[in-house]
Structures are given as C-alpha cells and as structure tokens.
C-alpha cells in the first residue's frame, strides 16, 4: 500500500534509530484548541518520555478527547505545536508509529474478527503477527466470528486488537473501559500492560480514578482544558492537600529516632508506644519503614488520602 520508495524506507529506518535516543514520545507546547467560543484545550504544555504509561485523568469536558484527537492528527490545534516522536501527528500516523482506540468505533458488520484485524495490521509497515495480536487481545477463540455477532465487551477487545495490530510505539486509548464490566476491565488492563511491557509508550484517558492509579506510572490531571496536576498517583494525592495520609504502628520500646526523616513524613506523633506518621506519600513512607529501618513494625495501619479526594480538590479548584 505504501507509496514510499525502498530508498525512503531505508532512510526511515535510519532516522528511527536516531529518534529512539533522547527523543520524547510526545511533546505538546502551548497547545490550544477552540471550537467557536469554547476553549476545549487551553494552553497545554506536556512532554512524555518513551516507554512510560501515562494516564490523563479528568471529568467529562476536561479536554482529554480533544487532546487525544490532536495527538492523532484528527484535529489541528488552534495554536501551539504537537510532536509525536519528533514528527507532526500526521507524519507519525503515516509512519505507523501510533495505534489508537477511540471512544467510538464500530466494526464492519459483515467481516469476521480475523479479517478485520488482518486488514488493519497489513496497513502498517511493521505489524505484529496476526496470531500474536489475537492472543494479546484474547480473541483467538472468536477469530472466525462476524463483527455483528459480538457482544459489547468482545467488540472492545477487537478495537484494542486494531490499536495494537501495527505494533505502534505509541498506543493511545481514550476511555477504553467505558462500556466494560469489572471482569472485562481487569482483563483489559492486563492486556494493556502486556503490550506496554515491551518498552512501548501508552497514553490513556479515563475518568476512573482507580484505573489511573493502578495502571499508570504518571498521572496527568486535566480540568477545563488545562493541566492541573502532573506526577505519580501518590504525588498527586499528596500534592493536592486533600488530607495527608497517615501511617500508624506499634513501636513498643524501640527507639523512635529517624522516623521524622523517612520519605514524605511531615509529622511524628508518639503516644503510649504507638506511632502516627503524617506523610505526603504513604507508599514511600511505608516502603522506607520496612526497607530503610530495622524496626519491628507491628499492627500497621494506613489511612491514605485517596486519589478521589485529590482529584476532586484539584478539579474543583480549576472550576473557580
């Protein structure tokens, strides 16, 4: 299908080798997108290194889907620039660097799962093997079934298969689990982690907090078209000031020295042999408590400010 000459393909491969080193997977700078008077995205600066899994979290209307449309070249920014692996989104799509699962996308009813997946994979210059795609999306058993006889969850799996079919270096998922039940969701994220584990970059939008928390190593919170927080899920919980987490345990008569310098700890409270640590990062504090000290920690109790609190306080602050 490609109209490129063998020479150009050769150049592509060479430039790929260069772009892998030190090149950001995604770079947005000063990106704005207006629809009439509405600013869907309002001055977004964002860089994403390759090989990471990043969640964009935000309520409906936060600008997540618009941002994704611009990354995929489906929409052009009103102002600012978008680069994907150093190229414009259109170029990156044409080079087969991006695979995506959009919010809506019906399949061709008369075609089987195998036919549909094989068609899409053959459009890419470096596709994954068909059987591997079917296996990764858990579709091997359904390969011969026509698209109009699939359930909603099965259709979503096919759409995931279409997104990974070309073996893209960047996988973009826009609220991929919106129509799934709990079990399908769990299986879906497992498939996603399987794909990401080969050093690929994944960006997904969600408004489920626990999905962002469990499946990403960086969370970007958007509200009203702006970035309102950016960090690990733990950092966001702490940084939002939505009530610091606490770690409590029985110290007995062991020495309390050093507890105040554990990562994240902002206050130490000891009463009757029980310690209460107030921390900005519950996970880091607990980890350091076990790995960084030789205390005998008993009756551990953790009460974290959950991501939900953080999220609400962040997005509500942006509403004002």
């Amino acid at each position: 299908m490609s109209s490129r000459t063998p020479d150009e393909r050769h150049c592509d491969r060479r430039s790929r080798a260069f772009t892998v080193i030190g090149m950001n997977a995604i770079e947005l700078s000063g990106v704005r997108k207006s629809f009439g008077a509405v600013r869907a995205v309002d001055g977004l600066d964002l860089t994403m290194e390759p090989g990471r899994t990043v969640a964009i979290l935000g309520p409906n209307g936060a600008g997540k889907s618009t941002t994704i449309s611009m990354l995929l070249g489906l929409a052009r920014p009103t102002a600012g620039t978008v680069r994907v692996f150093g190229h414009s989104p259109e170029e990156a799509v044409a080079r087969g660097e991006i695979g995506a699962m959009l919010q809506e996308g019906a399949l061709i009813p008369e075609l089987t799962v195998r036919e549909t997946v094989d068609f899409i994979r053959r459009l890419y210059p470096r596709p994954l093997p068909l059987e591997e795609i079917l296996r990764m999306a858990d579709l091997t058993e359904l390969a011969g079934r026509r698209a109009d006889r699939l359930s909603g969850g099965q259709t979503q799996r096919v759409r995931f298969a279409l997104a990974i079919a070309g073996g893209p270096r960047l996988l973009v998922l826009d609220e991929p689990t919106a129509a799934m039940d709990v079990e399908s969701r769990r299986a879906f994220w497992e498939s996603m982690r399987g794909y990401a584990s080969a050093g690929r970059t994944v960006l997904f939008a969600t408004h489920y907090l626990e999905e962002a928390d469990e499946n990403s190593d960086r969370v970007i919170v958007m509200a009203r078209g702006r970035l309102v927080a950016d960090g690990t899920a733990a950092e966001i919980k702490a940084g939002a000031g939505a009530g610091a987490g606490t770690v409590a345990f029985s110290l007995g008569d062991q020495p309390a020295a050093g507890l105040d310098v554990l990562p994240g700890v902002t206050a130490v409270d000891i009463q009757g042999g029980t310690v209460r640590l107030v921390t900005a990062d519950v996970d880091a504090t607990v980890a350091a408590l076990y790995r960084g000290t030789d205390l005998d920690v008993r009756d551990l109790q953790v009460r974290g400010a959950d991501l939900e609190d953080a999220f609400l306080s962040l997005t509500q602050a942006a509403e004002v």
Partner: protein
Amino acid sequence: MLNYVKLEATRMLRNKRYIIFVVAFPVGFYLLYSNLWGAQADESTGLQGRIFLLVSMAAYGALAASIMSTAVPWAQERQAGWLRQLQITPLPGWAVIVTKMITALLLVLPALLLVTLAAVLVQHVSLSGQLLAVIAAMWVGAIPFAALGLTIGSLLRPDTAQPLAMICMFGLALLGGLWFPVAMLPETMRGIARALPSYDYADIGWQIAAGKVPGTASLAGWVAWAVVLSALAVFAFRRATVRG
C-alpha cells in the same frame, strides 16, 4: 490497496440487500420480461426484445450495484467511526475514495454477467463480439452512478442516505427508460428521460447491441454526467473527511 479492495468486496458480497437488489432483481425481471416480450422487436432501435431487455436489465443491475455498494455503507462507516479508525492508520486518505470507486465497479460485474448469463442460457442470445462490447461499455459506464452513490454517502447520514439512494436508484431506472422503453412514455417524460444519465447509459448499450456507433447526444450526455458527478464525489469526499 488490493487488501482494502478485497475487504470491501467481501463485505458487500455478504450483504443481503446487495444480493437482492443487484443480483436477484435484474435477473428475475429479465426472465419475466423476456418471457413476455422477448420475441417482439423494439421500434426505435430495431432490437429484438430479448436483447433490448438484456441491455435494460444489465443497466439497471449495474446502476443498482454501484449506488448500493457506495451510498449507505459509506454513510454508515463515517457515522460509526470506521472512517476514523482508518484515518489513524498509515492508509492515505485518497486511498479510501479510490478503493470505494474500484470496488463499486467490481461489484457491478456480477449484475452484468448474471443478466447476460440468463440471456444466453434461457433466451439463447448468442455470445457475440457485440455482446462483449456491450458488457464492457456497461461496465465502464457505471462510473457516474458510483460517483453519485459516494456523493450521497459523503453528504448525508445513514438514515437520510438510505431513502435518497433508493429514490435515485429507482428514479433513474424508471425515468431513464430501463424498466419501460422511453417510447412508451408521454412526451414530457421523454424529455426528462433524455436528460438523465441512466438513459444515456442504456442508450449507448442499445446502440452498440444494434451494431451502431452510439449517438453523440448520449455520449456527450454520459461524459457530462460522469465529469459532474465525479467532481461532486471528490468534493463531497474531501468535505466528509476533513480534519477539524
């Protein structure tokens, strides 16, 4: 792109609506009409009824195939998000419309060939060089109708594309004289018929079948329609696939 053409053709051949309108209708009508009037001669062309009807029904089948395989499927693909799915792959945008056009023309062939087969087997029409020339002309001649279908599919949503495609398909067939000879129609209707691409299209077929060179009026009419409808199809396609 071969991959894409194959996918589109496979998909339409499994579509019941396509099979009914494109294959069953023209062949069925041919068998019925040729049984009734096959032995009579058409006054204006001097053709035997069984050959005159062969051209008419082949023209109707080709017309139906080219509109059916384009308008509604394309409108549905746009609305349901399949177009977006394609837009985020390395498939270039122009490949979509080119593939749709090629596939539409491929899907015209079963209609043409099956009507011809019915004529040869049931009405003992001999498979002459002239008949092959007719088939070739009818095949290429379907271009304006495929372009019309693509235009409808690009401009309208599936729920409005569906009735409009039907109206165009039956209107062009009926008013263009594919179901009843134009000579049977009143004068004003004859005027309308001669302005339609479906009449020009069938007339070219009738003239070739009668061993004549097709008339300038029909050729010029067909070319004009082909140019206008193809230009419209490209314009509408670009409008439908524009990125915001």
